[in-house]
């Protein structure tokens, strides 16, 4: 019988146990074997000490869109940290733990005392196996990894490969002991009885012609920047956006790009706008606190019509908030933040591949419409891994800022044209001399407080953006699920769309007619396609990761129709099971009303 593999394995330990490291090897090996993988690690907020680390990996034979709300397998490298997570293991799920921990444990401190009836326990003397295999107890993590691979009969060489790749730059002895520990664990796993409740069957079907790569959202943003030929980057470190700058710092100088770490976010956006004004493909990256500081300068970008790309990865707020937890609460700031009527373009990808596409297209759009473009993601999307199949690296259009008319005498930098886009010249071009300014100005760029000029220019700056909704090579909205009229429609954005789609698929299996739409372009808002979707749905649910329903409010302000908000601000991604329940409830309500009528 064809069996669809879809299991989630969580490895839990304390900082120093090598939890994230073996999680990383696991997901890379599984991607290499040909599974679709999606993974999200949780780190402790503190740098030092023994905080909790969890590496969660979902492995499936067909495409999956989010993490599951539960785990099929939990591996404990540290019982104190793992005990609170026993409850997330499903009925008949497996728990793998150390049967012979380092020291005597207090009553209730061993995980075996916390298993639920129906959990399948695998007690493995990890420390002893590690000592026997390597002469030290430090390789418990590899013993556990080997056990998982052996138990579920996964190809050993894929893991050997991934381990060797991980320690490529380390001393040979490191790889050797990791492999030895892995192999001993593998042997133990292969010798253990595998209950059929958790199975990992071989991937089916053709392998993609493109190489599968494991990539995070931040990694994909970097790839998009490089594929689009980024030239300059200015940034200031902040979680969870730092990874973008760190990765670009390695890659850009190799590709003729220049990167400077500035003194703060105001300087970062200022320099990026300076570089954009000078004709360079320029970007910066930050999170909510940095975006707050950037708003005044973004307004200058809008007013002086300068292309620049701003990557924003949201975390919990307000203020310093929850630096290591996810949230979607900077939508208001990204779309509306700052003074004056300063509309810019905001793109919010929903998955890792989308991060690359939006990053690359953002440069094109910024140049074409001469405006700052924000690419808005969140910690969950920045840090989660997905298997991606990279397409053509030359898909993005090269830089194209050439003026539509020949500059020279009487050149008008801010000429009022039919589409609102004026001929742009950059320093170095004779005949294009002008002064860009944040003051309201006439077509030549000369300051003007004439009321007619102000209304014409304001209109120009807004109207020129409407055409961005038709920019090729990117879906600014996309509908999934049942076509035509449906009982329940889910409408959401950003990382939350994955959970919404999973919930929709489950609800469909229960016989509920439903559909889901993602909205990738938040500003300007794709009113028409969203309205069309709205009209097809009896009920509209808007799930998102914030308290005030920022996307729902944007939606209702754009389409002036009511929606049901599902706002959730715990710092964690949405729970798929809760969403399914909300869909059921909405469908019941609809059916009751339908029957009564």
């Amino acid at each position, binding site marked *: 019988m064809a069996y669809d593999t879809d299991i989630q394995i969580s490895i839990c330990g304390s900082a120093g146990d090598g939890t994230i490291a073996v999680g990383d090897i696991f997901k890379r090996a599984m991607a290499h074997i040909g599974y679709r993988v999606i993974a999200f690690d949780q780190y402790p907020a503190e740098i030092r000490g023994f905080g909790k680390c969890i590496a969660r990996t979902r492995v499936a034979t067909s495409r999956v869109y989010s993490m599951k709300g539960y785990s099929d397998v939990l591996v404990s490298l540290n019982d104190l940290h793992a005990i609170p997570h026993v409850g997330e293991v499903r009925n008949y799920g497996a728990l793998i733990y150390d049967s012979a921990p380092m020291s005597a444990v207090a009553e209730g401190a061993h995980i075996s005392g916390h298993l639920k009836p129906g959990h399948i326990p695998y007690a493995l003397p990890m420390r002893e196996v590690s000592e026997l295999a390597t002469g030290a107890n430090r390789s418990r993590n590899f013993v556990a990894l080997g056990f998982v691979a052996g138990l579920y009969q996964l190809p050993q060489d894929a893991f050997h490969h991934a381990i060797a790749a991980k320690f490529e730059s380390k001393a040979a002895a490191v790889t050797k002991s990791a492999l030895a520990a892995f192999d001993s664990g593998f042997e133990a796993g292969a010798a253990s009885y595998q209950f059929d409740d958790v199975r990992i069957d071989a991937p089916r079907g053709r392998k993609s012609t493109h190489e599968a790569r494991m990539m995070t959202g931040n990694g994909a943003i970097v790839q998009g920047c490089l594929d689009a030929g980024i030239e300059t980057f200015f940034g200031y470190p902040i979680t969870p956006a730092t990874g973008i700058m760190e990765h670009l710092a390695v890659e850009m*100088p190799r590709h003729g790009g220049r990167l400077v770490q500035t003194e703060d976010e*105001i300087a970062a956006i*200022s320099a990026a706008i*300076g570089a954009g004004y000078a004709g360079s493909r320029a970007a910066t990256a930050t999170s909510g606190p940095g975006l707050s500081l950037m708003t005044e300068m973004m307004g*200058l970008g809008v007013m002086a019509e300068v292309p620049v790309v701003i990557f924003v990865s949201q975390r919990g707020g307000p203020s310093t908030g929850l630096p290591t937890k996810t949230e979607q609460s900077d939508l208001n700031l990204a779309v509306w933040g700052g003074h004056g009527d300063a509309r810019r373009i905001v793109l919010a990808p929903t998955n890792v591949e989308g991060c690359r596409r939006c990053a690359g297209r953002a440069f094109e759009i910024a140049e074409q419409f001469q405006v700052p473009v924000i690419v808005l993601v969140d910690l969950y999307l920045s840090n989660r891994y997905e298997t991606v199949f990279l397409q053509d690296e030359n898909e993005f259009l090269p830089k194209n800022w050439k003026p539509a008319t020949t500059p020279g005498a009487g050149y008008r930098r801010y000429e009022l044209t039919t589409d609102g886009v004026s001929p742009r010249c950059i*320093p170095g071009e004779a005949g294009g001399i002008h002064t860009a300014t944040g003051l309201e100005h006439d077509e030549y760029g000369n300051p003007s407080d004439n009321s007619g000029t102000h209304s014409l220019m304001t209109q120009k700056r807004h109207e020129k953006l409407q055409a961005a909704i038709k920019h090729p090579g990117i879906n600014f909205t996309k509908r999934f699920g049942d076509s035509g009229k449906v009982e329940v429609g889910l409408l959401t954005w950003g990382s939350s769309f994955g959970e919404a789609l999973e919930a929709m698929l489950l609800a469909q299996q229960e016989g509920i007619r439903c559909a889901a739409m993602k909205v990738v372009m938040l500003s300007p808002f794709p009113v028409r396609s969203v309205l069309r979707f709205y009209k097809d749905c009896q009920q509209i649910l808007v799930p998102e990761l914030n308290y005030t329903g920022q996307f729902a409010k944007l939606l209702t302000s754009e389409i002036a129709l009511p929606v049901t908000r599902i706002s959730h601000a715990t710092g964690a991604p949405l729970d798929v099971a809760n969403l399914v329940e909300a869909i059921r409830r909405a469908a019941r309500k609809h059916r009751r009303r339908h029957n009564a009528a």
Partner: protein
Amino acid sequence: MIPQQPVYLEDKVDEIRQSGRLDYRSQALPTWCPGCGYYSVTEGLANALNDLQIEKENTVVVSGIGCASRFPFFMDTYGFHTLHGRALPVATGIKVANEKLTVVAIGGDGDGFAIGGGHIPHAARRNVDITYILFDNGIYGLTKGQVSPTSAIGFKTSTSPFENRDAPLNPLLMLLSYGASWVGQTYAGWPHHLAGLVQQALEHPGFSYLHVLSPCVTFDKTDRTYQNLDLTVRELDSDHDSSDLALAMQAASDTRSPALGLYYTSQRETLGQALDQVALRAGAGG
């Protein structure tokens, strides 16, 4: 001083036209008050660019917000009139994007040392190859006369009606300690001196900081006036050694009788050169 020979206006106008420096001036008439010290710079910078044969399309004048920052509109070069306090980071971005450009940042004392104070040390320590001309009138001109971080103690303004009690900054000492590789001071009342130093500042490879003492004739009738400055300024000692940082700092400490001239100059790697080195180490093109 009474000239020996009479100077005729037409001759002077002809001479200016022929010099080519008017090419660098825009059609816009400066919006400054008659007598404002800022007029000196339009002339000074146009002269220097002309003498150095720098093409105007390869010149970008970047400013913040303030009376002084209105300057780019009066030049026929590329210009960017940015935000209050942000001329330096914008100028840095422009230079990083295109090293071929001559980038000049201009602003007032409030723009530079109050709201923009956080950017100066970093432009200086990175040795961005730009010239920063800061007009210090000890007051906020554009917003009509408030106290500034370089206002003297005892100075009365609309926001210090009972006299300023905050000690003024010493910009020259700050720039010297920030690592600026070229630091000079001039006075708007000495336009020839100013023009000479602007030219030297432009020629310096690296970050050059030119401090210009400049009266605000409208909002300061008592303190930094032409009369007072004419009496107190002097030239740097003729034996001043501009390669000696300690000596430069000593000279900068004398605020009672401000000395004009080149305080300090040195040569070191610019930001552009540093970024080229980074590219080499990263194995660019490989």
